[in-house]
């Protein structure tokens, strides 16, 4: 039962964020955007925002963002980051992000969707005037998937601004929207009542109270509608009608206790105390911490008293008195536990966060307050927001603590890298410089050869392609000639002819083989080019690795020092805010527990008088009975 109450109340609070869920693109081009969605779908808003922020910053920092994979999803990513910030209760930043979309160069439907989201932020932050101003800026085409939600939001905004007629008019048009079943009808009823159209308003509340559905949220709003209408009818003294409406509320729903109490009073006001005993007796057996149950515990003996069964009434008053005493002791212990800080300690326990019913289970922990008394408080908007902030701050505190440790680890890594690379690098650099100069020389040679070959295509130079052997022979012939002509003598005729023949053979070979040699030289140059390319690749890889080696330990000191400073500052601020937020939560809990304690104390006094009165009447009745006998 309590689980249901809490779950339903949480569901009702979360309905807007469920409606605002970001869906994944049909064809995902950017995997990091997909990763942000993966975090978001698990409710890890911090990681989702952090990832998407980084992606968007990188995207906008590119020279040509169109080549980036995020380009295909950039509008959706902008919306998503706004939605995630909203879910992480960063309304100020979410508003700024969405405003940036509105002011950007976007199509009409995209702009209107952005305004819708902005208006929703204002509405959720209880700024109805700003919300109204925002929705009035929506003009032209609206994406079909938000049409109903936008109309519903408009109606809620008009209602919050006191423009009930406009709100009712919109809500009337929304009666067919399946996704808003129950909510549109209930809100229409309330808008009409506020507008002064009581009969029509009650009709819509009545209609909401009779909706057939299997959806938990719709059933909850149906019960709520019946409870509101029944209470209104009770106040108007239309007891029979009130009873009929209140009896429609499900016995296992979150509003069952209040409905049973009201149903009993509808009978009691008509003097039908026997009938009143039916809902009240059922209610009185439920959990004693519920305010309606506590009231039923004295309403039942009150009804017996009215039926002149004084002795039973006296006994029941006595039983209620004892139970109230026990509950007051429990409340005192709870208040003490809150004051001693156990409540906050229990709230941040990890294992409880894994469970949706964790708030209820807190009570099972030693020295924690009786959370059943705090259920309604815990479901209230202010407490929820404060609690979520406190839990977020606790999460931030843990993150900052971990990051501080990460920085220590980073420094260790850097130190180890420095210790490894620094002694090795000078020798490597020396060797590299030697090889580098050799490489440059070879490359220059290659370039020269290439240039010469290119020129030879225009002006053939067969002598350039003479082999080493031919060059040596040519040199030897020249030396022989010089030797023979030493001292001014001329070369003998026979020898001269032989020398010329030798030169002729050499020239013949060089000139006749020129084409083949040129082709072969080109082939060799091509092979050389392959080798040079390989060399260049290796060179680049070496340079990159060499750079990476230095970059792996240099240039981090300032960054790490700055991050340490920022983390320290943030930790101090988080600590201070946690203390303030914690005190606020404790005050809320303590106030609530005190309020319930005061109420029970009042009950005790009244029950004591009623019990004494019942005993007197029982004794008088017995005496009268004896006299009559």
């Amino acid at each position, binding site marked *: 039962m309590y689980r249901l109450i809490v779950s339903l109340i949480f569901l009702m609070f979360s309905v807007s964020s469920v409606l605002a869920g970001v869906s994944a693109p049909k064809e995902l081009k950017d*995997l990091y955007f997909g990763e942000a969605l*993966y975090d978001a779908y698990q409710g890890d808003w911090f990681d989702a925002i952090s990832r998407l922020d980084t992606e968007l910053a990188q995207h906008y920092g590119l020279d040509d963002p169109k080549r980036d994979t995020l380009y295909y999803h950039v509008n959706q990513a902008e919306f998503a980051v706004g939605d995630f910030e909203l879910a992480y209760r960063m309304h100020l930043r979410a508003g700024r992000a969405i405003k940036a979309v509105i002011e950007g160069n976007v199509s009409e439907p995209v702009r209107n969707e952005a305004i819708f989201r902005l208006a929703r932020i204002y509405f959720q932050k209880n700024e109805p005037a700003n919300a109204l101003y925002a929705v009035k800026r929506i003009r032209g085409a609206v994406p079909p998937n938000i049409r109903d939600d936008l109309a519903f939001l408009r109606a809620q905004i008009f209602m919050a601004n006191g423009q009930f007629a406009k709100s009712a008019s919109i809500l009337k048009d929304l009666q067919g929207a399946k996704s808003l079943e129950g909510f549109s009808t209930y809100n229409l009823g309330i808008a009409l009542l506020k507008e002064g159209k009581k009969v029509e308003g009650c009709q819509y509340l009545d209609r909401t109270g009779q909706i057939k559905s299997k959806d938990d949220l719709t059933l909850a709003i149906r019960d709520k509608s019946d409870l509101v209408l029944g209470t209104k009818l009770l106040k108007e003294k239309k007891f029979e009608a009130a009873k009929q409406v209140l009896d429609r509320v499900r016995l296992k729903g979150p509003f069952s206790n*209040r409905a049973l109490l009201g149903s009993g009073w509808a009978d009691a006001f008509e003097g039908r105390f026997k009938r009143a005993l039916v809902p009240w007796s059922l209610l009185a057996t439920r959990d004693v911490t519920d305010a309606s149950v506590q009231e039923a515990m004295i309403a039942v003996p009150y009804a017996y008293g009215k039926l002149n069964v004084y002795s039973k009434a006296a006994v029941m008053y006595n039983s209620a008195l004892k139970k109230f005493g026990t509950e007051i002791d429990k409340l005192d212990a709870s208040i003490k536990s809150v004051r001693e800080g156990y409540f906050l300690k229990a709230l941040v326990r990890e294992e409880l966060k894994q469970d949706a019913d964790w708030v209820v289970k807190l009570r099972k922990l030693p020295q924690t307050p009786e959370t059943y008394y705090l259920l309604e408080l815990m479901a209230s908007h202010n407490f929820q927001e404060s609690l979520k902030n406190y839990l977020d701050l606790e999460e931030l505190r843990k993150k900052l603590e971990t990051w501080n440790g990460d920085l220590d680890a980073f420094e260790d890594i850097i130190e180890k890298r420095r210790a490894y690379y620094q002694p090795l690098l000078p020798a490597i650099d020396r060797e590299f410089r030697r090889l580098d100069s050799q490489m440059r020389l070879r490359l220059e040679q290659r370039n020269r050869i290439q240039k010469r070959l290119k020129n030879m295509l225009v002006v053939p130079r067969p002598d350039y392609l003479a082999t080493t052997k031919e060059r040596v022979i040519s040199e030897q012939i020249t030396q022989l000639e010089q030797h023979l002509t030493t001292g001014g003598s001329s070369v003998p005729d026979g020898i001269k002819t032989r020398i010329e023949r030798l030169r002729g053979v050499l020239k013949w070979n060089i000139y006749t083989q020129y084409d083949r040699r040129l082709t072969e030289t080109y082939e060799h140059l091509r092979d050389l080019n392959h080798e040079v390319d390989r060399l260049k690749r290796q060179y680049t890889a070496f340079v990159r690795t060499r750079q990476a080696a230095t970059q792996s330990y240099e240039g981090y000191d300032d960054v790490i020092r700055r991050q340490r400073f920022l983390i320290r500052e943030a930790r101090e601020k988080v600590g201070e*805010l946690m203390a303030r937020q914690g005190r606020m939560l404790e005050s809320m809990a303590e106030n609530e527990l005190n309020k319930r304690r005061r109420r029970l104390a009042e009950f005790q006094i009244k029950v004591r008088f009623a019990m004494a009165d019942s005993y007197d009447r029982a004794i008088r009745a017995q005496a009268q009975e004896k006299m009559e006998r």
Partner: protein
Amino acid sequence: MFCWLRGAIIGISVLVLSFAAYAQEISKEQIKGLDEQVQEIKSDVLSIAANLNQLEEKLLYPSNTQVAVFVSLVTGETFRLDSVDIQLDGKPVTHHIYTFKELQALQKGGVQRIYTGNIRTGDHDLQVSVLGKSAGGTDLQNTKRFKVNKGIGPKIVEVSLTAQGITFKDR
């Protein structure tokens, strides 16, 4: 006496049926003021997170050696994914067992970065093993090997899963 009690109870019942005002001692302004300060510190911590992400990437996964493996489910897949095991060049590098929330996030279209690491440029062997259960309740077991070619820039690969098999997408 009973009239007095009745009056008292009616008064209380109206209180119970009306919407209660909680913790009146704490004003809305106080709550709003603190909330704005919490929003500010969240923003500050997010900016620290962004800087640390960059630092971590530069320090631990430089782009010339970085490899990232992502896991996704093909749209409409309803099989229950229990675990994914990744091996790179014959060495197990990561193993992940899925929670219900994680599985739901994948089914909605989220993509999980299951592994980020460092490899040399060139060809590498990637082995993906998947365990799960089909919609009909039969056990699913699938292992596939792929070739990953690492260039100069960061290497991003996507492993897309269905009940029938594993698809590799080189990004």
